[in-house]
Protein backbone atom coordinates (compact mmCIF):
# COMPACT_ATOMS: atom_id res chain seq x y z
CA UNK A 1 0.00 0.00 0.00
CA UNK A 2 1.12 3.50 -0.78
CA UNK A 3 4.08 2.35 -2.82
CA UNK A 4 5.14 4.95 -5.38
CA UNK A 5 3.14 4.63 -8.58
CA UNK A 6 5.19 7.27 -10.34
CA UNK A 7 8.91 7.58 -9.74
CA UNK A 8 11.09 10.16 -11.37
CA UNK A 9 14.80 10.26 -10.74
CA UNK A 10 17.12 12.99 -11.95
CA UNK A 11 15.39 13.56 -15.30
CA UNK A 12 17.24 15.73 -17.77
CA UNK A 13 16.13 16.91 -21.16
CA UNK A 14 17.53 19.50 -23.54
CA UNK A 15 15.87 20.97 -26.61
CA UNK A 16 18.88 22.15 -28.54
CA UNK A 17 20.57 24.73 -26.34
CA UNK A 18 17.57 25.00 -24.01
CA UNK A 19 17.78 22.96 -20.82
CA UNK A 20 14.15 22.05 -20.25
CA UNK A 21 14.79 19.65 -17.36
CA UNK A 22 17.83 19.91 -15.15
CA UNK A 23 17.53 16.93 -12.85
CA UNK A 24 13.90 16.54 -11.80
CA UNK A 25 13.13 13.98 -9.09
CA UNK A 26 9.93 13.15 -7.23
CA UNK A 27 7.66 10.23 -6.41
CA UNK A 28 3.89 9.96 -6.35
CA UNK A 29 2.18 7.51 -4.03
CA UNK A 30 -0.85 5.45 -4.88
CA UNK A 31 -4.07 7.41 -4.54
CA UNK A 32 -2.28 10.71 -4.29
CA UNK A 33 -3.18 13.85 -6.20
CA UNK A 34 0.21 15.31 -6.89
CA UNK A 35 0.74 18.71 -8.42
CA UNK A 36 3.55 20.13 -10.51
CA UNK A 37 3.25 23.87 -10.00
CA UNK A 38 5.34 26.32 -11.93
CA UNK A 39 5.38 29.08 -14.50
CA UNK A 40 5.09 28.43 -18.23
CA UNK A 41 8.25 26.93 -19.61
CA UNK A 42 9.32 25.50 -16.24
CA UNK A 43 9.43 21.94 -17.58
CA UNK A 44 6.08 20.61 -16.36
CA UNK A 45 4.81 19.43 -19.72
CA UNK A 46 8.13 17.87 -20.66
CA UNK A 47 8.11 15.91 -17.40
CA UNK A 48 4.56 14.66 -17.91
CA UNK A 49 5.15 13.78 -21.55
CA UNK A 50 8.20 11.73 -20.59
CA UNK A 51 6.02 9.84 -18.12
CA UNK A 52 3.39 9.26 -20.79
CA UNK A 53 6.04 7.81 -23.09
CA UNK A 54 5.71 10.65 -25.60
CA UNK A 55 9.19 12.06 -25.08
CA UNK A 56 12.53 10.50 -24.31
CA UNK A 57 14.66 11.99 -21.57
CA UNK A 58 18.35 12.62 -22.22
CA UNK A 59 19.17 10.97 -18.92
CA UNK A 60 17.56 9.92 -15.66
CA UNK A 61 14.87 7.34 -15.00
CA UNK A 62 11.11 7.41 -15.01
CA UNK A 63 8.76 4.65 -13.89
CA UNK A 64 4.98 4.52 -14.01
CA UNK A 65 3.22 1.53 -12.41
CA UNK A 66 6.65 -0.11 -12.33
CA UNK A 67 7.05 0.27 -16.10
CA UNK A 68 9.58 2.23 -18.09
CA UNK A 69 7.56 4.55 -20.35
CA UNK A 70 10.25 4.41 -23.01
CA UNK A 71 10.08 0.66 -23.40
CA UNK A 72 6.63 -0.54 -22.43
CA UNK A 73 4.46 1.26 -24.97
CA UNK A 74 1.11 -0.46 -25.20
CA UNK A 75 1.31 -2.10 -21.78
CA UNK A 76 1.76 1.28 -20.12
CA UNK A 77 -0.86 2.98 -22.25
CA UNK A 78 -3.44 0.43 -21.09
CA UNK A 79 -2.88 1.60 -17.52
CA UNK A 80 -2.76 5.34 -17.88
CA UNK A 81 -5.14 8.06 -18.95
CA UNK A 82 -4.17 11.59 -19.86
CA UNK A 83 -5.38 15.02 -20.76
CA UNK A 84 -2.81 16.64 -23.03
CA UNK A 85 -2.21 20.33 -23.14
CA UNK A 86 -2.27 20.91 -26.88
CA UNK A 87 -4.43 18.48 -28.72
CA UNK A 88 -7.68 18.34 -30.63
CA UNK A 89 -10.14 15.98 -32.22
CA UNK A 90 -11.52 16.04 -35.76
CA UNK A 91 -14.12 18.81 -35.99
CA UNK A 92 -16.86 16.63 -37.37
CA UNK A 93 -16.48 13.84 -34.83
CA UNK A 94 -19.42 13.54 -32.46
CA UNK A 95 -18.90 13.35 -28.70
CA UNK A 96 -20.21 9.80 -28.37
CA UNK A 97 -18.21 8.67 -31.39
CA UNK A 98 -15.01 10.04 -29.92
CA UNK A 99 -15.58 8.10 -26.70
CA UNK A 100 -16.51 4.93 -28.55
CA UNK A 101 -13.52 5.18 -30.85
CA UNK A 102 -11.00 5.69 -28.10
CA UNK A 103 -12.49 3.11 -25.77
CA UNK A 104 -12.31 0.57 -28.59
CA UNK A 105 -8.51 0.76 -28.45
CA UNK A 106 -8.32 -0.65 -24.92
CA UNK A 107 -8.83 -4.13 -23.57
CA UNK A 108 -10.47 -2.82 -20.40
CA UNK A 109 -13.40 -0.47 -21.00
CA UNK A 110 -15.85 1.55 -19.01
CA UNK A 111 -19.53 2.06 -19.59
CA UNK A 112 -19.58 5.12 -21.83
CA UNK A 113 -23.12 6.19 -20.90
CA UNK A 114 -22.00 6.51 -17.30
CA UNK A 115 -19.03 8.64 -18.36
CA UNK A 116 -21.21 10.88 -20.53
CA UNK A 117 -23.63 11.35 -17.66
CA UNK A 118 -20.95 12.00 -15.13
CA UNK A 119 -19.20 14.66 -17.18
CA UNK A 120 -22.44 16.40 -18.11
CA UNK A 121 -22.09 15.43 -21.77
CA UNK A 122 -25.15 13.22 -22.12
CA UNK A 123 -27.12 15.98 -23.83
CA UNK A 124 -24.19 16.77 -26.07
CA UNK A 125 -23.42 13.26 -27.16
CA UNK A 126 -24.62 13.90 -30.73
CA UNK A 127 -22.79 17.25 -30.96
CA UNK A 128 -19.74 17.68 -33.18
CA UNK A 129 -16.44 18.38 -31.46
CA UNK A 130 -16.31 21.78 -33.20
CA UNK A 131 -19.61 22.77 -31.60
CA UNK A 132 -18.42 22.28 -28.01
CA UNK A 133 -17.43 25.12 -25.69
CA UNK A 134 -13.98 25.19 -24.15
CA UNK A 135 -15.27 23.69 -20.92
CA UNK A 136 -17.16 20.94 -22.72
CA UNK A 137 -14.09 20.07 -24.78
CA UNK A 138 -12.09 19.79 -21.60
CA UNK A 139 -14.72 17.61 -19.93
CA UNK A 140 -14.71 15.40 -23.01
CA UNK A 141 -10.92 15.21 -22.82
CA UNK A 142 -11.23 14.07 -19.22
CA UNK A 143 -13.93 11.54 -20.05
CA UNK A 144 -11.71 10.20 -22.84
CA UNK A 145 -8.84 9.89 -20.40
CA UNK A 146 -11.03 7.62 -18.27
CA UNK A 147 -12.40 5.25 -20.93
CA UNK A 148 -9.94 2.52 -19.96
CA UNK A 149 -10.42 2.97 -16.20
CA UNK A 150 -6.76 3.92 -15.79
CA UNK A 151 -4.80 3.52 -12.58
CA UNK A 152 -2.91 6.72 -13.16
CA UNK A 153 -4.13 9.98 -14.64
CA UNK A 154 -1.90 12.67 -16.10
CA UNK A 155 -3.59 16.02 -16.39
CA UNK A 156 -1.51 18.65 -18.11
CA UNK A 157 -2.97 22.09 -17.37
CA UNK A 158 -6.52 20.76 -17.53
CA UNK A 159 -8.06 24.11 -16.63
CA UNK A 160 -5.84 26.46 -18.62
CA UNK A 161 -7.85 28.97 -20.60
CA UNK A 162 -11.17 28.11 -18.95
CA UNK A 163 -13.24 30.80 -17.32
CA UNK A 164 -13.34 30.76 -13.51
CA UNK A 165 -16.76 29.17 -13.20
CA UNK A 166 -15.90 26.32 -15.56
CA UNK A 167 -12.61 25.92 -13.76
CA UNK A 168 -14.44 25.42 -10.48
CA UNK A 169 -16.62 22.78 -12.12
CA UNK A 170 -13.45 21.00 -13.14
CA UNK A 171 -12.16 21.20 -9.57
CA UNK A 172 -15.28 19.42 -8.35
CA UNK A 173 -14.70 16.66 -10.89
CA UNK A 174 -11.04 16.30 -9.95
CA UNK A 175 -11.90 16.18 -6.26
CA UNK A 176 -14.32 13.39 -6.98
CA UNK A 177 -11.66 11.46 -8.89
CA UNK A 178 -9.33 11.83 -5.94
CA UNK A 179 -11.97 10.48 -3.58
CA UNK A 180 -12.21 7.44 -5.83
CA UNK A 181 -8.55 6.79 -5.08
CA UNK A 182 -7.09 7.48 -8.50
CA UNK A 183 -3.45 8.44 -8.60
CA UNK A 184 -3.30 11.78 -10.36
CA UNK A 185 -0.42 13.89 -11.57
CA UNK A 186 -1.62 17.41 -12.31
CA UNK A 187 0.35 20.28 -13.76
CA UNK A 188 -0.83 23.81 -13.27
CA UNK A 189 0.27 27.39 -13.02
CA UNK A 190 -2.78 28.31 -10.97
CA UNK A 191 -1.94 28.67 -7.29
CA UNK A 192 -5.53 28.18 -6.24
CA UNK A 193 -5.72 24.91 -8.11
CA UNK A 194 -2.62 23.47 -6.51
CA UNK A 195 -3.63 24.56 -3.02
CA UNK A 196 -7.18 23.40 -3.26
CA UNK A 197 -6.69 20.07 -4.99
CA UNK A 198 -3.25 18.67 -4.38
CA UNK A 199 -2.16 16.40 -1.55
CA UNK A 200 1.40 17.32 -2.35
CA UNK A 201 2.98 19.82 -4.67
CA UNK A 202 6.36 20.03 -6.34
CA UNK A 203 7.17 23.60 -7.25
CA UNK A 204 9.16 23.54 -10.43
CA UNK A 205 11.14 26.34 -12.00
CA UNK A 206 13.70 26.41 -14.82
CA UNK A 207 13.71 22.63 -15.03
CA UNK A 208 14.26 21.99 -11.33
CA UNK A 209 12.07 21.05 -8.40
CA UNK A 210 12.69 23.90 -5.98
CA UNK A 211 10.28 22.84 -3.23
CA UNK A 212 8.21 19.76 -2.46
CA UNK A 213 5.58 19.03 0.18
CA UNK A 214 1.92 19.44 1.04
CA UNK A 215 0.61 22.96 0.38
CA UNK A 216 0.39 23.52 4.12
CA UNK A 217 3.93 22.32 4.78
CA UNK A 218 5.28 24.51 2.04
CA UNK A 219 3.54 27.57 3.37
CA UNK A 220 4.71 26.86 6.89
CA UNK A 221 8.23 26.37 5.71
CA UNK A 222 8.17 29.83 4.21
CA UNK A 223 7.38 31.23 7.65
CA UNK A 224 3.65 31.49 7.26
CA UNK A 225 4.01 35.22 6.89
CA UNK A 226 1.14 37.40 5.70
CA UNK A 227 1.68 39.05 2.37
CA UNK A 228 1.27 42.80 2.11
CA UNK A 229 1.37 44.23 -1.37
CA UNK A 230 1.48 47.93 -1.98
CA UNK A 231 1.90 50.33 -4.88
CA UNK A 232 3.29 53.74 -4.05
CA UNK A 233 3.05 57.12 -5.74
CA UNK A 234 6.85 57.59 -5.65
CA UNK A 235 9.43 54.84 -5.82
CA UNK A 236 11.03 53.79 -2.56
CA UNK A 237 14.04 51.62 -1.85
CA UNK A 238 13.04 48.10 -0.84
CA UNK A 239 15.78 48.33 1.77
CA UNK A 240 13.76 50.96 3.62
CA UNK A 241 10.63 48.89 3.49
CA UNK A 242 12.45 45.84 4.77
CA UNK A 243 13.26 47.78 7.94
CA UNK A 244 9.60 48.18 8.83
CA UNK A 245 8.22 46.56 11.96
CA UNK A 246 7.41 42.85 11.56
CA UNK A 247 8.72 42.51 7.97
CA UNK A 248 10.45 39.20 7.44
CA UNK A 249 11.11 39.72 3.78
CA UNK A 250 10.47 42.49 1.30
CA UNK A 251 11.10 43.00 -2.37
CA UNK A 252 9.98 44.97 -5.33
CA UNK A 253 8.37 43.07 -8.17
CA UNK A 254 7.62 45.24 -11.19
CA UNK A 255 5.82 48.29 -9.78
CA UNK A 256 4.68 46.56 -6.60
CA UNK A 257 6.27 46.19 -3.22
CA UNK A 258 5.69 42.80 -1.70
CA UNK A 259 6.31 42.44 2.01
CA UNK A 260 6.00 39.30 4.08
CA UNK A 261 5.17 40.08 7.65
CA UNK A 262 4.86 37.99 10.77
CA UNK A 263 2.94 40.83 12.48
CA UNK A 264 0.84 42.40 9.74
CA UNK A 265 -0.97 44.98 11.91
CA UNK A 266 2.27 46.50 13.12
CA UNK A 267 3.75 46.43 9.65
CA UNK A 268 0.84 48.33 8.15
CA UNK A 269 0.92 50.97 10.86
CA UNK A 270 4.66 51.32 10.36
CA UNK A 271 4.24 51.54 6.60
CA UNK A 272 1.67 54.32 6.83
CA UNK A 273 3.83 56.28 9.26
CA UNK A 274 6.88 55.88 7.06
CA UNK A 275 4.97 57.04 3.99
CA UNK A 276 3.74 60.12 5.88
CA UNK A 277 7.23 60.94 6.96
CA UNK A 278 8.55 60.52 3.41
CA UNK A 279 5.71 62.52 1.88
CA UNK A 280 4.83 59.49 -0.25
CA UNK A 281 1.34 58.27 -1.10
CA UNK A 282 -0.23 54.84 -0.98
CA UNK A 283 -1.98 53.95 -4.25
CA UNK A 284 -3.13 50.47 -3.39
CA UNK A 285 -2.77 48.03 -0.55
CA UNK A 286 -3.58 44.34 -0.41
CA UNK A 287 -3.26 41.99 2.51
CA UNK A 288 -3.46 38.26 1.96
CA UNK A 289 -2.89 35.07 3.89
CA UNK A 290 0.22 33.35 2.57
CA UNK A 291 -0.21 31.19 -0.53
CA UNK A 292 2.06 28.99 -2.57
CA UNK A 293 2.76 32.07 -4.64
CA UNK A 294 4.61 33.49 -1.62
CA UNK A 295 6.65 30.34 -1.40
CA UNK A 296 7.53 30.77 -5.05
CA UNK A 297 8.41 34.45 -4.61
CA UNK A 298 10.56 33.64 -1.63
CA UNK A 299 12.43 30.96 -3.55
CA UNK A 300 12.84 32.72 -6.87
CA UNK A 301 12.27 36.42 -6.33
CA UNK A 302 9.67 36.28 -9.08
CA UNK A 303 5.97 35.83 -9.33
CA UNK A 304 4.63 32.59 -10.66
CA UNK A 305 2.91 34.29 -13.58
CA UNK A 306 5.15 36.93 -14.98
Amino acid at each position, binding site marked *: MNAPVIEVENLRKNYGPVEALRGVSFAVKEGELFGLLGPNGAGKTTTVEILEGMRTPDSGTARVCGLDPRKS*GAELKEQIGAV*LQSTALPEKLRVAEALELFS*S*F*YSHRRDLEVLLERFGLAEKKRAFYAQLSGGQKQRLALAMALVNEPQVLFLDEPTAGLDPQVRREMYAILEELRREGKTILLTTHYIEEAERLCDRVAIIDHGRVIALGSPRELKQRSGGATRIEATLANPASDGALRQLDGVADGRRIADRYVLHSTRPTQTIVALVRWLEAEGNELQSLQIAAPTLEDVFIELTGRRLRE
Partner: protein
Amino acid sequence: MKHTWTLTRVRMLLALRNRAFIFFSAIMPLAFLFLYCSVFARGQPQQAGYMMPAVLALTVMGSFWGLSMQLVMFREQGILRRFRLAPIHPGALLASSIVSTYLLTLPTLFAELAIAKWFYRVPSFGNLWGVFALLSLGSVAFASFGLIVASVTNSMQETTVINQAIWFLFIFLSGATIPLPFLPGWVQRIGAFLPATHLVTGLQYVFVAAVSLLSVLPEVVALVGGAVMAYVVSLKLFRWEPEERITRRAKGVAAAVVIPFLLLGVWENARGTRRAGTQAIYDAVQKRLAPGNPR
Protein backbone atom coordinates in the same frame (compact mmCIF):
# COMPACT_ATOMS: atom_id res chain seq x y z
CA MET B 1 -6.68 -5.49 -37.48
CA LYS B 2 -9.62 -4.63 -35.24
CA HIS B 3 -8.26 -1.15 -34.66
CA THR B 4 -7.75 -0.64 -38.38
CA TRP B 5 -11.37 -1.47 -39.04
CA THR B 6 -12.70 0.80 -36.26
CA LEU B 7 -10.52 3.65 -37.50
CA THR B 8 -11.59 3.00 -41.09
CA ARG B 9 -15.25 3.30 -40.12
CA VAL B 10 -14.67 6.59 -38.32
CA ARG B 11 -12.52 7.96 -41.15
CA MET B 12 -15.30 7.16 -43.62
CA LEU B 13 -17.86 8.90 -41.43
CA LEU B 14 -15.65 11.97 -41.18
CA ALA B 15 -15.05 12.03 -44.92
CA LEU B 16 -18.76 11.83 -45.70
CA ARG B 17 -19.37 14.80 -43.40
CA ASN B 18 -16.78 16.83 -45.26
CA ARG B 19 -18.13 18.87 -48.19
CA ALA B 20 -14.74 19.25 -49.82
CA PHE B 21 -14.38 15.49 -49.83
CA ILE B 22 -17.77 15.02 -51.49
CA PHE B 23 -16.81 17.57 -54.12
CA PHE B 24 -13.42 16.10 -54.95
CA SER B 25 -14.35 12.41 -54.72
CA ALA B 26 -17.82 12.36 -56.20
CA ILE B 27 -18.77 15.54 -58.01
CA MET B 28 -15.48 16.24 -59.76
CA PRO B 29 -14.97 12.68 -61.10
CA LEU B 30 -18.52 12.68 -62.44
CA ALA B 31 -17.85 16.04 -64.05
CA PHE B 32 -14.80 14.50 -65.72
CA LEU B 33 -16.97 11.64 -66.94
CA PHE B 34 -19.41 14.03 -68.61
CA LEU B 35 -16.60 16.15 -70.02
CA TYR B 36 -14.81 13.15 -71.53
CA CYS B 37 -17.80 11.22 -72.75
CA SER B 38 -20.16 14.02 -73.81
CA VAL B 39 -17.65 16.62 -75.00
CA PHE B 40 -14.48 14.80 -76.08
CA ALA B 41 -16.24 11.65 -77.30
CA ARG B 42 -19.37 13.58 -78.36
CA GLY B 43 -21.49 10.88 -76.78
CA GLN B 44 -20.30 8.32 -79.33
CA PRO B 45 -20.40 4.95 -77.48
CA GLN B 46 -17.15 3.51 -78.87
CA GLN B 47 -15.25 6.75 -78.28
CA ALA B 48 -16.77 7.03 -74.81
CA GLY B 49 -15.51 3.51 -74.15
CA TYR B 50 -12.04 4.59 -75.20
CA MET B 51 -12.25 7.52 -72.77
CA MET B 52 -13.42 5.44 -69.81
CA PRO B 53 -9.99 4.20 -68.66
CA ALA B 54 -8.83 7.81 -68.35
CA VAL B 55 -11.97 8.79 -66.45
CA LEU B 56 -11.65 5.85 -64.06
CA ALA B 57 -7.92 6.46 -63.59
CA LEU B 58 -8.55 10.12 -62.72
CA THR B 59 -11.12 9.05 -60.12
CA VAL B 60 -8.65 6.71 -58.48
CA MET B 61 -5.57 8.93 -58.83
CA GLY B 62 -7.05 11.87 -56.95
CA SER B 63 -7.01 9.88 -53.70
CA PHE B 64 -3.44 10.81 -52.78
CA TRP B 65 -4.46 14.45 -52.59
CA GLY B 66 -7.19 14.33 -49.96
CA LEU B 67 -5.45 11.65 -47.95
CA SER B 68 -2.19 13.55 -47.58
CA MET B 69 -3.98 16.79 -46.72
CA GLN B 70 -6.02 15.10 -44.04
CA LEU B 71 -3.08 13.35 -42.45
CA VAL B 72 -1.00 16.53 -42.36
CA MET B 73 -3.94 18.46 -40.94
CA PHE B 74 -4.41 15.81 -38.23
CA ARG B 75 -0.76 16.16 -37.34
CA GLU B 76 -0.73 19.96 -37.43
CA GLN B 77 -3.82 20.27 -35.24
CA GLY B 78 -2.46 17.88 -32.63
CA ILE B 79 -5.10 15.25 -33.37
CA LEU B 80 -2.53 12.56 -34.03
CA ARG B 81 -0.87 13.12 -30.66
CA ARG B 82 -4.14 12.32 -28.93
CA PHE B 83 -4.14 8.99 -30.76
CA ARG B 84 -0.56 8.47 -29.68
CA LEU B 85 -1.72 8.21 -26.06
CA ALA B 86 -3.85 5.20 -26.89
CA PRO B 87 -2.40 1.73 -27.40
CA ILE B 88 -2.57 1.78 -31.17
CA HIS B 89 0.11 1.27 -33.77
CA PRO B 90 0.72 3.89 -36.47
CA GLY B 91 0.35 1.04 -38.96
CA ALA B 92 -3.35 0.81 -38.08
CA LEU B 93 -3.80 4.53 -38.63
CA LEU B 94 -2.06 4.47 -41.99
CA ALA B 95 -3.85 1.34 -43.11
CA SER B 96 -7.19 2.89 -42.17
CA SER B 97 -6.32 5.87 -44.38
CA ILE B 98 -5.86 3.57 -47.34
CA VAL B 99 -8.81 1.29 -46.69
CA SER B 100 -11.26 4.14 -46.09
CA THR B 101 -10.09 5.90 -49.25
CA TYR B 102 -10.56 2.72 -51.24
CA LEU B 103 -14.03 1.98 -49.88
CA LEU B 104 -15.14 5.55 -50.49
CA THR B 105 -13.88 5.49 -54.08
CA LEU B 106 -15.88 2.38 -54.95
CA PRO B 107 -19.34 4.03 -55.12
CA THR B 108 -18.02 6.72 -57.47
CA LEU B 109 -16.41 4.08 -59.70
CA PHE B 110 -19.61 2.04 -59.77
CA ALA B 111 -21.63 5.15 -60.58
CA GLU B 112 -19.27 6.00 -63.43
CA LEU B 113 -19.48 2.49 -64.86
CA ALA B 114 -23.28 2.51 -64.53
CA ILE B 115 -23.54 5.86 -66.32
CA ALA B 116 -21.16 4.60 -69.00
CA LYS B 117 -23.26 1.52 -69.56
CA TRP B 118 -26.78 2.92 -69.42
CA PHE B 119 -26.35 6.53 -70.42
CA TYR B 120 -23.45 6.50 -72.85
CA ARG B 121 -24.19 2.95 -74.04
CA VAL B 122 -20.54 1.96 -73.90
CA PRO B 123 -20.69 -1.43 -75.66
CA SER B 124 -18.11 -3.33 -73.60
CA PHE B 125 -16.13 -3.00 -70.37
CA GLY B 126 -13.56 -5.44 -71.71
CA ASN B 127 -12.19 -7.66 -68.97
CA LEU B 128 -14.42 -6.39 -66.17
CA TRP B 129 -12.72 -8.30 -63.36
CA GLY B 130 -9.38 -7.11 -64.61
CA VAL B 131 -10.69 -3.55 -64.62
CA PHE B 132 -11.94 -3.97 -61.07
CA ALA B 133 -8.63 -5.46 -59.92
CA LEU B 134 -6.56 -2.71 -61.52
CA LEU B 135 -8.80 0.01 -60.12
CA SER B 136 -8.55 -1.50 -56.64
CA LEU B 137 -4.81 -1.75 -56.95
CA GLY B 138 -4.57 1.77 -58.31
CA SER B 139 -6.70 3.16 -55.51
CA VAL B 140 -4.54 1.51 -52.86
CA ALA B 141 -1.31 2.53 -54.59
CA PHE B 142 -2.26 6.18 -55.06
CA ALA B 143 -3.59 6.38 -51.51
CA SER B 144 -0.21 5.08 -50.33
CA PHE B 145 1.50 7.81 -52.33
CA GLY B 146 -0.59 10.24 -50.30
CA LEU B 147 0.96 8.76 -47.16
CA ILE B 148 4.38 9.47 -48.58
CA VAL B 149 3.50 13.06 -49.37
CA ALA B 150 2.22 13.47 -45.80
CA SER B 151 5.39 11.99 -44.38
CA VAL B 152 7.79 14.25 -46.27
CA THR B 153 5.94 17.54 -45.78
CA ASN B 154 5.81 19.65 -42.64
CA SER B 155 2.83 21.88 -43.27
CA MET B 156 -0.43 22.07 -45.19
CA GLN B 157 1.13 24.67 -47.48
CA GLU B 158 4.00 22.41 -48.45
CA THR B 159 1.59 19.54 -48.95
CA THR B 160 -0.55 21.62 -51.31
CA VAL B 161 2.45 22.62 -53.41
CA ILE B 162 3.78 19.09 -53.71
CA ASN B 163 0.34 17.68 -54.46
CA GLN B 164 -0.21 20.28 -57.15
CA ALA B 165 3.10 19.40 -58.83
CA ILE B 166 2.47 15.65 -58.69
CA TRP B 167 -1.09 16.03 -59.88
CA PHE B 168 -0.05 17.98 -62.98
CA LEU B 169 2.59 15.43 -63.89
CA PHE B 170 0.14 12.61 -63.33
CA ILE B 171 -2.73 13.97 -65.35
CA PHE B 172 -0.88 15.48 -68.29
CA LEU B 173 1.90 12.98 -68.91
CA SER B 174 0.04 9.75 -68.24
CA GLY B 175 -2.53 9.79 -70.99
CA ALA B 176 -5.29 10.60 -68.52
CA THR B 177 -6.12 13.90 -70.21
CA ILE B 178 -4.44 13.82 -73.60
CA PRO B 179 -4.24 10.29 -75.00
CA LEU B 180 -0.63 9.11 -75.18
CA PRO B 181 -0.61 8.71 -78.99
CA PHE B 182 -1.12 12.47 -79.24
CA LEU B 183 1.93 13.26 -77.14
CA PRO B 184 5.41 13.66 -78.65
CA GLY B 185 7.72 10.70 -78.27
CA TRP B 186 9.94 12.31 -75.65
CA VAL B 187 6.94 13.14 -73.45
CA GLN B 188 5.79 9.55 -73.75
CA ARG B 189 9.25 8.49 -72.65
CA ILE B 190 8.97 10.61 -69.51
CA GLY B 191 5.45 9.35 -68.94
CA ALA B 192 6.79 5.80 -68.81
CA PHE B 193 8.30 6.62 -65.41
CA LEU B 194 5.03 7.68 -63.83
CA PRO B 195 2.75 5.36 -61.84
CA ALA B 196 -0.20 7.22 -63.34
CA THR B 197 0.83 6.11 -66.82
CA HIS B 198 0.91 2.47 -65.75
CA LEU B 199 -2.55 2.78 -64.32
CA VAL B 200 -4.00 4.49 -67.41
CA THR B 201 -2.22 2.16 -69.85
CA GLY B 202 -3.07 -0.94 -67.84
CA LEU B 203 -6.71 0.10 -67.72
CA GLN B 204 -6.77 0.75 -71.46
CA TYR B 205 -5.42 -2.71 -72.10
CA VAL B 206 -7.97 -4.52 -69.94
CA PHE B 207 -10.91 -2.19 -70.64
CA VAL B 208 -10.57 -1.44 -74.34
CA ALA B 209 -8.48 -4.35 -75.60
CA ALA B 210 -10.02 -6.78 -73.05
CA VAL B 211 -6.75 -8.54 -72.32
CA SER B 212 -6.12 -10.61 -69.20
CA LEU B 213 -4.39 -9.24 -66.11
CA LEU B 214 -1.41 -11.37 -66.97
CA SER B 215 -0.84 -9.27 -70.06
CA VAL B 216 -0.46 -6.17 -67.89
CA LEU B 217 1.74 -7.88 -65.33
CA PRO B 218 4.47 -5.19 -65.44
CA GLU B 219 1.86 -2.54 -64.56
CA VAL B 220 0.41 -4.70 -61.81
CA VAL B 221 3.84 -5.38 -60.34
CA ALA B 222 4.79 -1.70 -60.45
CA LEU B 223 1.60 -0.62 -58.70
CA VAL B 224 1.84 -3.36 -56.05
CA GLY B 225 5.54 -2.66 -55.53
CA GLY B 226 4.94 1.08 -55.29
CA ALA B 227 2.08 0.64 -52.83
CA VAL B 228 4.01 -1.70 -50.55
CA MET B 229 7.09 0.49 -50.68
CA ALA B 230 5.06 3.63 -49.95
CA TYR B 231 3.31 2.01 -46.98
CA VAL B 232 6.51 0.66 -45.46
CA VAL B 233 8.42 3.91 -45.96
CA SER B 234 5.63 6.11 -44.61
CA LEU B 235 5.37 3.85 -41.58
CA LYS B 236 9.07 4.30 -41.01
CA LEU B 237 8.84 8.08 -41.39
CA PHE B 238 5.59 8.42 -39.45
CA ARG B 239 5.44 11.46 -37.15
CA TRP B 240 2.84 12.00 -34.44
CA GLU B 241 3.92 15.42 -33.31
CA PRO B 242 3.42 18.73 -35.12
CA GLU B 243 6.84 20.01 -34.09
CA GLU B 244 8.73 16.96 -35.35
CA ARG B 245 10.34 18.01 -38.61
CA ILE B 246 11.32 15.77 -41.49
CA THR B 247 15.05 15.32 -41.81
CA ARG B 248 16.96 15.36 -45.06
CA ARG B 249 17.91 11.75 -44.58
CA ALA B 250 14.27 10.81 -44.22
CA LYS B 251 13.50 12.54 -47.50
CA GLY B 252 16.15 10.33 -49.07
CA VAL B 253 14.46 7.25 -47.64
CA ALA B 254 11.14 8.43 -49.06
CA ALA B 255 12.69 8.73 -52.51
CA ALA B 256 13.04 4.93 -52.48
CA VAL B 257 9.37 4.74 -53.47
CA VAL B 258 10.21 5.77 -57.01
CA ILE B 259 12.51 2.74 -57.50
CA PRO B 260 9.91 0.34 -58.97
CA PHE B 261 8.71 3.03 -61.35
CA LEU B 262 12.21 4.01 -62.31
CA LEU B 263 13.04 0.41 -63.19
CA LEU B 264 9.84 -0.10 -65.12
CA GLY B 265 10.34 3.21 -66.93
CA VAL B 266 13.82 2.25 -68.06
CA TRP B 267 12.66 -1.20 -69.11
CA GLU B 268 9.63 0.17 -70.93
CA ASN B 269 11.64 2.83 -72.76
CA ALA B 270 14.10 0.18 -73.89
CA ARG B 271 11.35 -2.08 -75.23
CA GLY B 272 8.76 0.44 -76.34
CA THR B 273 6.01 -2.20 -76.46
CA ARG B 274 3.55 -0.23 -74.38
CA ARG B 275 3.91 2.80 -76.57
CA ALA B 276 3.20 0.72 -79.62
CA GLY B 277 0.35 -0.95 -77.75
CA THR B 278 -1.45 2.25 -76.77
CA GLN B 279 -1.08 3.47 -80.35
CA ALA B 280 -2.54 0.20 -81.66
CA ILE B 281 -5.51 0.42 -79.28
CA TYR B 282 -6.17 3.97 -80.38
CA ASP B 283 -5.88 3.07 -84.06
CA ALA B 284 -8.20 0.10 -83.65
CA VAL B 285 -10.90 2.27 -82.09
CA GLN B 286 -10.55 4.91 -84.80
CA LYS B 287 -10.63 2.30 -87.53
CA ARG B 288 -13.85 0.86 -86.19
CA LEU B 289 -15.30 4.34 -86.24
CA ALA B 290 -14.16 5.12 -89.76
CA PRO B 291 -17.01 5.79 -92.24
CA GLY B 292 -18.24 2.66 -93.95
CA ASN B 293 -17.33 0.37 -91.07
CA PRO B 294 -20.15 -1.31 -89.15
CA ARG B 295 -20.37 0.20 -85.64
